[in-house]
């Protein structure tokens, strides 16, 4: 563990929306191949924290360094976004394109991969998420769980160094949650660096190397899943966990 390099380094991160102070000073280091799960009540700032990492929200203070590149807005944000995959709660697939087109677009336009290579890569990742036969379908012909797996494959096609998941199963019907979690577990097993905002405590316990409890704009508690779930120290963590477990 100690020999691994920090891939994401966040210091003193602040974010306000007008008068609303959402993040009040977050310090966080994430190592290569680490799976960090962020939990917390809604409105606690956990999604905002995740979205700041690839600048979908522009921080109002503090510093984020990704793979030794300090983020400074439009100047280099695309360099970092290429390396950080993101999976959204609402999938955000491109509805006017087939699954295959969804997957090859960014590699071709951003990484300048040839169509042939991009398609090969796309089919490989579709296979991996178990949807090889859906390449020529449109997103609205797929179930929610299938769409989310396509979204994961789409992010993987950029060969990212880390993946961010913003409540990836919250918009899914219960029977589809597992198929998505299985794909994520597989990714974790293969050594992908992952930051996951989720309400799936089972997933957090099973896959997470570290759990962060975020509340009121701060990281209130952090530790291994055993520490946080079985022996929470902070009263706010205890109260939150007692409500959901």
């Amino acid at each position: 563990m100690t020999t691994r390099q920090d891939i994401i380094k966040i210091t003193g991160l602040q974010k306000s929306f007008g008068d609303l102070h959402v993040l009040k000073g977050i310090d966080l280091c994430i190592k290569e191949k680490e799976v960090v799960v962020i939990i917390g009540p809604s409105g606690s700032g956990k999604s905002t924290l995740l979205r700041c990492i690839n600048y979908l929200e522009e921080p109002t203070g503090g510093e984020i360094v990704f793979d030794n590149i300090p983020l400074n807005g439009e100047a280099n944000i695309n360099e970092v976004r290429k390396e950080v995959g993101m999976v959204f709660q609402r999938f955000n697939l491109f509805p006017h394109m087939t699954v295959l087109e969804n997957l090859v677009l960014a590699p071709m336009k951003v990484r300048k991969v040839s169509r042939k290579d991009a398609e090969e890569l796309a089919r490989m990742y579709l296979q991996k998420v178990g949807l090889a036969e859906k390449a020529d379908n449109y997103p609205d012909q797929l179930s929610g769980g299938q769409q989310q797996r396509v979204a994961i494959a789409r992010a993987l096609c950029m060969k990212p160094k880390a993946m961010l998941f913003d409540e990836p199963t919250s918009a899914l019907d219960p029977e589809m949650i597992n198929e998505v979690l299985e794909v994520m577990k597989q990714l974790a097993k293969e050594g992908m660096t992952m930051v996951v905002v989720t309400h799936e405590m089972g997933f957090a316990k099973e896959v997470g190397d570290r759990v962060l409890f975020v509340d009121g704009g701060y990281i209130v508690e952090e530790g291994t899943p055993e520490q946080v779930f079985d022996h929470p120290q902070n009263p706010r963590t205890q109260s939150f966990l007692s409500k959901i477990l």
Partner: protein
Amino acid sequence: MDVNFELMQSAFPLLIAGACITVEITALTVFFGMIIGICVSLIRMSDFKLLRWMGNVYVDFIRGTPLLIQIFLVYFALPSIIGHRVDAYFAAISACSINSGAYMAEVFRGGIQSIDIGQMEAGRSLGMTWWQTMRYIILPQAFKRIIPPLGNEFIAMLKDSSLVSVIGFEELTRRGQLIIARTYASFEIWMAVAIIYLILTFTVARLTGLLERKFETK
């Protein structure tokens, strides 16, 4: 009263030739108007305050003044500034395009803003630039939604292009006027002109409907 159908018939070839010119200037106007419209709508959504302000002034000015006055400005007022005559064809196309562009800008803005913000976020999170995301993801989806208002804009332009007759540009309306000046058959000719406009607008409306359905099935 007696309606002189023979006269109507004999006037038809001349009027049809005028209608072709009406279609030509409308098509060119809509084409240039769309280009202006896309650019202005993007400018008005950009982060640059000055550009945004200029876009707003343009749209407000054009929508707040009559097309007829805009045609006069280009044809009569512009020459006194630049020092030489402006060709009627150029004046007609440019005045109408600039006019149409303002309305198109609003149509495009509405279409673009109706696309879920998550689409832009997904594109950007994959490392694509703002413009790449616009071009490959937002605009294709927005375009599908703005086919009906674009059709309306096309139809409005077909009719409004009759205004360029005042600068002597010989499109459908002007042809009608000229024939009446010779024959005094105002009822027959204006009826014929109206029917031709109706056929043109009806055709465009049907084509828009077809286009809409074609994109719908995808």
